[in-house]
């Protein structure tokens, strides 16, 4: 059967902040670019980001990129690559100003400049005091940014393939990436996208956990495709728990609440963060705050009849500030917790929020893998940007507002790199003869299935296992058990049954295809986590506690290195952290206190 082949200079998979910042750069330069998205672009998960974009504009108080750089390295628990972090923090003001020029409706100060609010882990003078660095549009920053980027892409005539799901990467005999296969949801037909370059901007895999702030679409599709194509995944053991997910609902309440002055309280009404982080208090980084909350709950100071949550108190901010700066938080409180946050505290718990790891890349967004002794050999024709990538600017823990920044900086950088390397004048490499066979076989297997498990039952078992064995506090024993369990569940996922065999907008088929991607992301997470025998950032293991040799359980002699997980045989490899920035001095290792 002859499949239709779409030919473009560049194919971007994913229409969130990173994908659309990149496609905009390419479309403006006159390249033929196609963007594939499972959902209409403005429905991508960037839309849910609330608090702000980190950039040292210094509009409210003295700030500069050196402070931002230091905070990000320290926030990453020294696992972030300092060259990439320097690049991101230096570029930050520029990409924010550009976004403003594109029409982003930022809130304003009396002098007309962009409004900025404090955020967790962002400080002035190397940790001395919190600094307002988060450039915000109320608490809808992600929504405003995503819509602005979509609008600019409309202006630049970017070609969108809306409600198309990418299935697999096409690599030729030399291992270069020459395209992707994709399924048009409305018709159920598979096509080939033949490109000089494929850019993944597919977002995170937060849906591998049972309780997550993430949208249903965040199933790690890019990770699954990369893993199946033999590309390793980096640092997948590091998952951020956001301190303030609504108890029993999972919906996120922005860190901007605390940026505006909200306080976390235990059942005694105590502002307990003062005890743990005397300088930054409630605005310590997320991994740190989440652990403190968990500690309070464990020691019997949790709130509620079961003592299983913490109270986020906004009542002292006043109705006017809340309705002006945090209107969505007010709306979410009402809809998902039946709480008026102006009048009473809202129950929150640390909730899975963000994937620090991903497809390994360099600062141009090019995917890099170990080959012939070089741990960072470029895979020709393949880029990854945004949450699906690991460049690595977030290391073991991301600072709030650095995610939107990451999308803008690296989306733009990848686009620029393609333009600078004269993509337009390059020729397409030929497609291999069997380009779509693998994808078609996967679809055919589902279409012919008549016995086997229901995809969502398997996925739900996976989510429960991940929640139990790869949660906020980890133990070696539990992680080891988790590996056995997750690998067993992944076996079951190999034979799924689809009842609905219709071709037209078959969401059951889409979900079944997503399950294959969830499995790769979950295996990568569980196997990488069980192997890392230390505590660092979001990976906190009870067995590796605070000792004089290893402060806070971090073992730099052995474990200051990036994990690389390969799907085939669940093999692990490691590569060094880049401790040398581009132009400034290395931030030396230190114990992380706030």
């Amino acid at each position, binding site marked *: 059967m002859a499949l239709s082949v779409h030919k473009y200079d560049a194919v971007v998979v994913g229409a969130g902040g990173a994908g659309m910042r990149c496609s905009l750069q390419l479309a403006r330069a006159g390249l033929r670019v196609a963007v594939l998205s499972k959902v209409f672009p*403005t429905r991508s998960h960037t839309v*849910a980001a609330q608090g702000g974009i980190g950039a040292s504009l210094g509009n409210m108080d003295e700030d500069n990129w050196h402070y931002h750089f230091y905070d990000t390295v320290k926030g990453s628990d020294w696992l972030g690559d300092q060259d990439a972090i320097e690049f991101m923090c230096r570029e930050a003001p520029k990409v924010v100003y550009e976004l403003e*020029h594109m*029409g982003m409706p*930022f809130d304003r100060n009396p002098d007309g400049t962009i409004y900025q609010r404090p955020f967790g882990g962002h400080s002035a003078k190397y940790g001395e005091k919190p600094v307002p660095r988060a450039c915000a549009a109320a608490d809808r920053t992600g929504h405003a940014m995503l819509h602005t980027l979509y609008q600019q892409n409309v202006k630049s005539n970017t070609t969108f393939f809306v409600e198309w799901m990418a299935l697999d990467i096409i690599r030729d005999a030399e291992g270069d990436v020459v395209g992707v296969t994709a399924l048009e949801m409305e018709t159920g037909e598979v096509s080939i996208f033949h490109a000089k370059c494929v850019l993944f901007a597919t977002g995170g895999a937060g849906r591998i956990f049972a309780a997550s702030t993430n949208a249903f679409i965040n199933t790690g599709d890019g990770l699954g495709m990369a893993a199946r194509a033999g590309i390793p995944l980096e640092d997948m053991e590091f998952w951020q728990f956001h301190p303030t997910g609504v108890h029993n609902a999972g919906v996120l309440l922005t860190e901007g609440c605390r940026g505006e002055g909200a306080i976390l309280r235990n059942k005694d009404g105590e502002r307990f963060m003062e005890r743990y982080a005397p300088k930054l208090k409630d605005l310590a980084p997320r991994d740190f705050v989440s652990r403190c909350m968990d500690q309070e709950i464990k020691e019997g100071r949790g709130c509620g009849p079961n003592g299983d949550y913490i109270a986020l108190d906004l009542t002292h901010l006043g109705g006017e500030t809340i309705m002006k700066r945090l209107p969505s938080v007010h709306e979410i409180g009402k809809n998902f917790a039946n709480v008026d946050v102006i009048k009473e505290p809202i129950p929150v718990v640390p909730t899975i929020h963000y994937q620090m790891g991903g497809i390994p890349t360099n600062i141009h967004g090019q995917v890099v893998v170990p080959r012939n002794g070089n741990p960072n050999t470029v895979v020709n024709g393949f880029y990854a940007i945004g949450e699906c990538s690991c460049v690595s600017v977030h290391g073991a823990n991301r600072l709030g507002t650095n995610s939107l920044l990451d999308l803008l900086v690296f989306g733009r950088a990848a686009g620029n790199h393609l333009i600078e390397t004269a993509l337009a004048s390059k020729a397409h490499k030929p497609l291999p003869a069997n380009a779509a066979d693998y994808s078609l076989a996967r679809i055919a297997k589902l279409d012919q299935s008549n016995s086997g498990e229901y995809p969502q039952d398997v996925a739900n078992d996976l989510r429960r296992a991940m929640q139990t064995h790869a949660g906020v506090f980890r133990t070696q024993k539990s992680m080891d058990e988790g590996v056995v369990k997750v690998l067993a569940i992944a076996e079951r996922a190999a034979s799924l049954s689809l009842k609905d065999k219709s071709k037209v*907008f078959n969401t059951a088929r889409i979900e079944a295809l997503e399950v294959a991607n969830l499995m790769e992301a979950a295996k990568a997470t569980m196997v990488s986590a069980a192997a890392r025998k230390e505590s660092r950032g979001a990976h906190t293991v009870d067995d590796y506690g605070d000792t004089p040799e290893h402060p806070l359980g971090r073992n730099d002699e052995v474990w200051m290195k990036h994990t690389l997980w390969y799907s085939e045989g669940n093999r692990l490899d490691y590569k060094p952290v880049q401790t040398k920035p581009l132009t400034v001095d290395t931030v030396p290792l230190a114990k992380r206190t706030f």
Partner: protein
Amino acid sequence: MADKRTFEIYRYDPDKDAKPYMQTFEVELEGTERMLLDALMKLKKMDDSVSFRRSCREGVCGSDAMNINGKNGLACLTNMQTLPQKITLRPLPGLPVVRDLIVDMSMFFKQYHSIKPYIVNETVAPEKERLQSQEDREELNGLYECILCACCSTSCPSFWWNPDKFVGPAGLLAAYRFIADTRDQVREERLDNLEDPYRLFRCHTIMNCVDVCPKGLNPTKAIGKIKDMLVKRAA
């Protein structure tokens, strides 16, 4: 306590159905299934062929708009406690049905695109941000928050009759968002683009759009402001 609900759902799969029909489901809900979307997810576990769009499940992505007991809304923001025992779900009215509760939104987005939904400012950009006063920025509140769910336009009789010619409430709200932005330089062209018996003036202030907007926005008010500007311009 068992909470047993009856769902009447519009079903149509062009792959196998000659015509649409209504199908009845009985679903028993747990306390944790708080929103209509939670109930729908449970229903999909019973019958995986029931088709609808969904993503963020918190009212910001705009995917799960549908007609709920005769009124358009988002499934993820509709609390089950506000619904009666029997719930009738239909696709958004006025747009072609792709399958079940999934509609073809091309016409809706075509109208959104027709208003040039992007800032136009051809002056050389400054090194830093373009300054905007707090008052000027406040003009954008109630406009930029639209999530393009189409609840409003598909509840508007004027849009049902002329979806190819009338911009519709969502598109006009967006049009005013750019007209009102002090950074935009083509206000007159934007007004020219709307000065037409159909594009703008098909709005007869029926105000269904205001009634159904899940974000509490007011397209009718924005449309009124555009009409005022056109009247003033003509005077």
